[in-house]
């Protein structure tokens, strides 16, 4: 703990105990508690290091006139202080503890009405309850009854905290009792499980007497569970809900003897609750049953008979909406239970079966079918039921085949025919019965169902054996895309589904020319859509499609899907270039990234540049200079990153033609990008610079790719890196080209950028560069000698903007060095014109002064700068010291009302 903080704490305590209302803001107390939490976790004993706390607590607890928030804070603080047994004893002996947690005390003071006192009381107890002493204290003070009452408190937070606390008490009792019964095996398991929180149990002397107390607590809680589980009237549903939540917590965490006991106690009540069939309680009830069930599953025990029976009951409830909910909840857990999984699948497929008229389920109970049908006739519940089913469909198809009532292909068919129903053009067999017609009418034109169905369809693409449906899916999705009434999200999801299906079913032989024509037509149309969202998803689709590898039957070789279905660049590029002119910046940005994706293949193959690509590059550079929106400019930089990285990864086939265009463009991207107003553009530009660094120095000794500080100490460094020997001439050449490309200027301008992420990244890259070119480890004397040639590489520092900043830094450094009389002081800056006067002269003369790159790198104090930049900007403001000082300042401001105004402004 900070010495300074410790010295401030007594005064802070005084301030708090005197009057709480003079706090700088209402989060201060929470921040203080956070600090104490951190200290406690770090193993500091609060009482030892801050003895003033004891006095603080005992003062505050007697002064009930204080602000309730201070009192609540004190209650919680007491919990932290008493977390160790030693401190607990001290508190108890000074009789503070009894008063702090004395309910009557608070009730008499009329403070118990305030929810923050109640929650403070619960949380204080909860924090403290880490050792048997605290537990005994709890039992002896008979806090159980009030706690049970708080469970249905009108404040949701209090109720939930009480629930957590009850669970905690019961689990603690469980551990203690098992220790008491000397069950060595259990205990060993215990300590491991509870992660040391009750680690000091071993030396606790648990008497038989206290053991009985614990048994009484367990009995009392389970009695209460049993009694309050079934609501007597509708108004008590809230209580049942709370009890169910608690029960779910307990059954998931307790172990056999207690688990058995709990289950034994509540089984009848749960039965009763099930029969009563309260719809609001279905999900919590299912949670309880599933918690019990999965606790068997996790502990590799055979599922309990009672639990299985309850589960079967749940999956056979009469109310269709509840039934679907229960089945969905079961499937989400992903338990290994073939029988119930199969049953849930059947339940969830029933609505689809009914609405599409496809025989997904060979047999269903007529009654269940009838009830479901009636439910589906109501429009709202129909849509919500169908959506729940669709959301769970993909998971179903991943199940073992013997769990599914029908093959996945049939489910795909059902989803397809549901989509047809939605668009209103259905000739599905369902039209035969009037009931089905009534049901299917509810989904016509419902875009909610459409969205869910499209999601399901996308996810179903991976199911086994569904490839045969590709042509059908293709046709339907194209129809969806063509439908004038489809809303933008539906169109977007259709595009996504199309890409997904094509990427999974890489064999496109079933796609006919007609299919292709239809898709071409619809893509063309949607790229001119009146809504920008639609144009955006169309453009995105074109890009994604280019990234999908497929096999065409004719050529028998892999190509991308864009070539296979749309005819490749000759179709897509004109559309994308037109999209570059779009009025909406998102569309322009998407078009740029889509262009990068479509051209990626030709870059990788090292194909010669076309006239069109040259035009595109010019267009993109124009976007970078002129576009008013950041999205498009960011996309341009990413385009060049993609291009450069695809070229460097295939450097063997690098064609001179393309690099003759690439490198000049990269150069202008670097200069324009680093001068951009948008920080993300600048960060991307630095990424581009990093790529160039990687390329230039790959294999160079001392060069570590990426962030040097993040390299794992045990990482294996490939041998190849060491094979290239350090050749100074090489380095000079490379450094020269980096300067020419503008990498060095970009990095230097980034370093002085006011946006921290930019500066941080630039700083890291500069350090990397320094380590390769002129490592500091060589020492100043060695360096000058060893790098005589490298030091000759210079870069320009023009007379404005970022360069002025850099210059200032260099001058400061030089002055410092001179003052210290350092050896290399005079040589840091290789010409005098770096001084203010010289600078003026240089700009008048029209020449830009040059500085040695090496010297700049060595003189900029990059490591110190990195250190500053790594810390978040509010690190000073957020420190505990600052917090304590704030509290003190606020209180002194209060005592001198004149300055109050000022302080409020400060807080802001």
């Amino acid at each position, binding site marked *: 703990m900070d010495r300074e903080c410790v010295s401030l704490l007594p005064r802070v305590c005084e301030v708090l105990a005197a009057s709480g209302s003079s706090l700088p803001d209402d989060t201060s107390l929470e921040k203080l508690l956070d600090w104490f939490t951190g200290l406690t976790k770090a193993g500091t004993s609060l009482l030892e290091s801050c003895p003033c706390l004891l006095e603080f607590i005992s003062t505050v607890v007697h002064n009930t006139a204080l602000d309730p928030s201070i009192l609540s804070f004190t209650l919680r603080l007491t919990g932290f202080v008493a977390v160790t047994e030693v401190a607990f004893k001290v508190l108890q002996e000074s009789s503070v503890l009894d008063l702090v947690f004395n309910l009557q005390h608070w009730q008499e003071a009329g403070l118990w009405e305030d929810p923050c006192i109640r929650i403070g009381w619960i949380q204080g107890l909860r924090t403290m309850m880490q050792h048997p002493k605290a537990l005994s204290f709890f039992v002896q003070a008979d806090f159980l009854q009030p706690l049970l009452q708080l469970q249905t408190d009108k404040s949701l937070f209090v109720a939930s905290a009480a629930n957590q606390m009850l669970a905690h008490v019961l689990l603690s009792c469980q551990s203690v009792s098992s220790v008491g019964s000397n069950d060595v095996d259990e205990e060993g398991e215990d300590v491991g499980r509870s992660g040391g929180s009750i680690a000091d149990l071993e030396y606790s002397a648990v008497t038989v007497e206290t053991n009985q107390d614990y048994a009484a607590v367990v009995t009392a809680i389970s009695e209460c569970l049993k009694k309050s589980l079934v609501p007597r009237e509708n108004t008590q549903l809230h209580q049942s809900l709370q009890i169910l939540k608690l029960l779910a917590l307990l059954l998931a965490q307790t172990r056999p003897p207690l688990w058995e006991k709990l289950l034994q106690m509540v089984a009848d009540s749960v039965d009763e609750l099930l029969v009563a069939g309260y719809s609001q309680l279905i999900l919590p009830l299912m949670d309880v049953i599933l918690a019990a069930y999965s606790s068997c599953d996790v502990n590799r025990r055979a599922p309990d008979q009672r639990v299985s029976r309850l589960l079967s009951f749940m999956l056979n409830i009469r109310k269709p909406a509840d039934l679907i909910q229960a089945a969905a909840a079961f499937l989400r857990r992903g338990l290994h239970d073939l029988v119930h999984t199969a049953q849930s699948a059947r339940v969830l497929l029933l609505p689809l079966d009914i609405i599409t008229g496809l025989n997904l389920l060979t047999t269903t109970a007529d009654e269940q079918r009838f009830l479901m049908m009636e439910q589906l006739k109501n429009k709202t519940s129909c849509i919500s039921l169908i959506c729940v089913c669709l959301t769970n469909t993909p998971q179903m198809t991943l199940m073992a085949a013997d769990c599914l009532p029908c093959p996945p292909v049939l489910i795909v068919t059902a989803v397809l025919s549901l989509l047809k129903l939605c668009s209103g053009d259905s*000739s599905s067999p369902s039209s035969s019965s009037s009931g089905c*017609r009534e049901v299917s009418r509810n989904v016509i034109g419902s875009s909610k169902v459409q969205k869910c169905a499209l999601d399901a369809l996308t996810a179903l693409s991976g199911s086994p054996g569904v490839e045969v449906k590709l042509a059908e899916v293709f046709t339907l999705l194209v129809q969806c895309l063509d439908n004038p009434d489809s809303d933008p999200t539906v169109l977007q999801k259709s595009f996504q589904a199309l890409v997904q299906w094509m990427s999974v079913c890489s064999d496109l032989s079933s796609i006919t020319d007609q299919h292709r024509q239809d898709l071409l037509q619809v893509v063309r149309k949607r790229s*001119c*859509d*009146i809504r920008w969202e639609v144009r955006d998803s169309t453009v995105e689709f074109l890009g994604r499609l280019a990234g999908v590898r497929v096999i065409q039957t004719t050529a028998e070789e892999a190509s991308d899907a864009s070539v296979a279905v749309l005819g490749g660049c000759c179709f897509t590029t004109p559309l994308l270039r037109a999209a570059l002119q*779009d009025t909406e910046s998102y569309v322009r940005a998407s078009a740029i990234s889509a262009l990068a994706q479509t051209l990626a293949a030709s870059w990788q193959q090292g194909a010669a540049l076309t006239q069109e690509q040259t035009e595109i590059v010019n267009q993109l550079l124009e976007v970078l200079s002129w576009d008013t929106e950041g999205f498009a400019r960011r996309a341009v930089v990413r385009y060049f990153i993609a291009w450069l990285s695809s070229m460097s990864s295939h450097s063997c086939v690098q064609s001179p033609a393309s690099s003759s265009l690439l490198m000049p463009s990269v150069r202008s991207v670097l200069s324009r990008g680093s001068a951009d107003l948008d920080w993300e553009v600048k960060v991307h530009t630095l990424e581009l610079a990093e790529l160039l660094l990687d390329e230039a120095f790959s294999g160079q000794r001392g060069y570590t790719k990426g962030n040097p500080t993040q390299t794992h100490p045990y990482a294996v460094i490939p041998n190849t890196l060491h094979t290239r020997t350090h050749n100074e001439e090489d380095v000079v050449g490379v450094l020269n080209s980096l300067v020419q490309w503008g990498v060095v200027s970009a990095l230097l301008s980034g370093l002085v950028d006011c946006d921290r992420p930019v500066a941080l990244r630039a700083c890291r890259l500069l350090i990397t560069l320094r380590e390769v070119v002129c490592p500091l480890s060589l020492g100043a004397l060695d360096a000058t000698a060893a790098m005589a040639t490298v030091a000759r590489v210079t870069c320009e520092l023009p007379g404005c903007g970022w360069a002025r900043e850099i210059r200032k830094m260099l001058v400061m450094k030089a002055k410092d060095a001179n003052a210290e009389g350092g050896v290399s002081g005079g040589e840091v800056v290789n010409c005098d014109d770096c001084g203010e006067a010289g600078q003026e002269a240089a700009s008048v003369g029209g020449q830009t002064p040059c500085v040695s790159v090496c010297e700049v790198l060595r003189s900029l104090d990059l490591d110190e700068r990195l250190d500053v930049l790594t810390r978040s900007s509010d690190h000073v403001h957020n420190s505990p010291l600052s917090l304590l000082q704030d509290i003190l300042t606020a209180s002194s401001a209060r005592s001198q009302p004149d300055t109050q105004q000022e302080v409020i402004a400060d807080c802001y």
Partner: protein
Amino acid sequence: MKLYCLSGHPTLPCNVLKFKSTTIMLDCGLDTTSVLNFLPLPLVHSPRLSKLPGWISKDGTINLEKVLDARELLDLSTIDVILISNYHCMMALPYITEHTGFTGTVYATEPTLQIGRLLMEEVVNFMERVPKAQSATCWKNKEIQRMLPGPLKDAVDVWTWKRCYSMQEVNSALSKVQLVGYSQKVELFGAVQVSPLSSGYSLGSSNWIIQSHHEKVSYVSGSSLLTTHPQPMDQSSLKNSDVLILTGLTQMPTANPDGMLGEFCSNLAMTIRAGGNVLVPCYSSGVIYDLLECLYQFIESASLGTTPFYFISPVANSSLEFSQIFAEWLCHNKQTKVYLPEPPFPHAELIQTNKLKHYPSIHGDFSSEFRQPCVVFTGHPSLRFGDVVHFMELWGKSSLNTIIFTEPDFSYLDALAPYQPLAMKCVYCPIDTRLNFHQVSKLLKEVQPLHVVCPEQYTQPPLTQSHRSDLMLELQPPPMPYRRCSVLNLPFRRRYERVYILPELANSLVPSEIKPGVSVATVSAVVHSKDNKHTLQSVPKPPPVAPSKKRKRVMDEPPVVLAPKPLLSGAVPLEAFLATLQKHGITEVKVEETADGHILHLQAEDTLIQLEEDGTHIVCDNNEPLRTTLRDLVLRFLQKL
């Protein structure tokens, strides 16, 4: 109350309502689909059209089908008034008002009249500018018709087809129109009151309320709830109707106007980008305003800034300008623009910036300004006459060009038939903003009419989509369907009539209160009915009998008006009555309860008194004094008027 249905076309209605001695015609739409049976009328001689096998261009004048030869059903001269709901529903007006003996009045709003006149003018102009030297007359004869080529041979009811009217007839018909404003009340012969309400479909379009003092009939025709340019629909005034006649729902229930507008724009942009021309066959008023507005916003984002838009129609100029001056008939947004002052429609700006140009026809200035690729809006949507015929011939051969149909009135395949084979792309985006079934069922739930009358087409799903049970009206009680030529007895009886009392007669009344707040008086008077107004006047004093020399019989004297017998009201309370009887010495009374009241058996007197809700009988044989006593006792409990 009777409804005569003269048109089977649900969006071009023509119904006659007989209500309280008035005969009211509701709309007179003109179904022009019969023109599809004929060849297009080219502006210049077309060798291709004249040489089509099996087609003989003989009868040049296009025939228009009139709603119905209504004379069979009722005599058009008996019609008192015609109420017009929108300019599309008045195109048959000259056929009804001219040469039929019609003497009544036509009521319409000003934009309806003006734009209706433009549309009629346009049709007449299209016809008259390509006059034919000869016209066939005998072909309607069944024998000859059988020998005619294809579609004409199979056409039914050709005898109802009429030649197009002339400008003179149009003017004469429109001179009978009397202008009304929304919510203005017009008295018809004192019997009923009619008033138009905004229907939200087009400029000046209206629904009508026809009401007497005790009955209310609403006529809903061509309404829209979408926020396009017209004033929004007035729904609340339709509440509490006894009968609601519902016509003019959307013809395209599956085509959502928003989606179609989007479709229109993207197809247009796609064609222009590929270097093609776009042809939009449309009416010269209505949806075109919305299309232009939508394009105005879209031009920028689709980079169509330099593409010229042409609007060619004999009435193009008037239509564009009329739309800007009917500010009070526009939606709120557009109305407020007028006060800025700004033109309410953005097409003014398009014209100013030369992006939109309009011409009366392809002759003259247009040919010198014409630049391609371009977008052309022109009529007629049937592709049988008007300038559109020329553009079809001009652009039909290139697959770069596109024709986009936006009007829902004609089947686009039939419209295109004579131009086949056609290389031009063809897109069908019918934009019909009228109410769809979903909206109408919501509306009816809101206004809750007692009875709904509608064309039978609305009571079942469309023939081609029999599974779409969402595309029909489902109401409780079910709507009364009508079809062409049916006569419906509307299911409500007139029960009350309003009668006025003259002041002097009213003065002479002596009301007496029979229960708190209700007073009753008897009146003797003479009913005087004139102009459907009923007045009670005092009975004229009998003229003093002229002394007659020849005294015939005494009985011949005018009957002396006797003072009417007082009317009794009230009920006889049993207990009190028994007590009274007892006071009068009648003690042995046996009371028997019956379904309607009580029977009192006075055993000693051997007399029965039947006390019932609407009568009291004293059955007493041969004891007149007792009967009189009993009668007086009963009368004590009753009130006299």
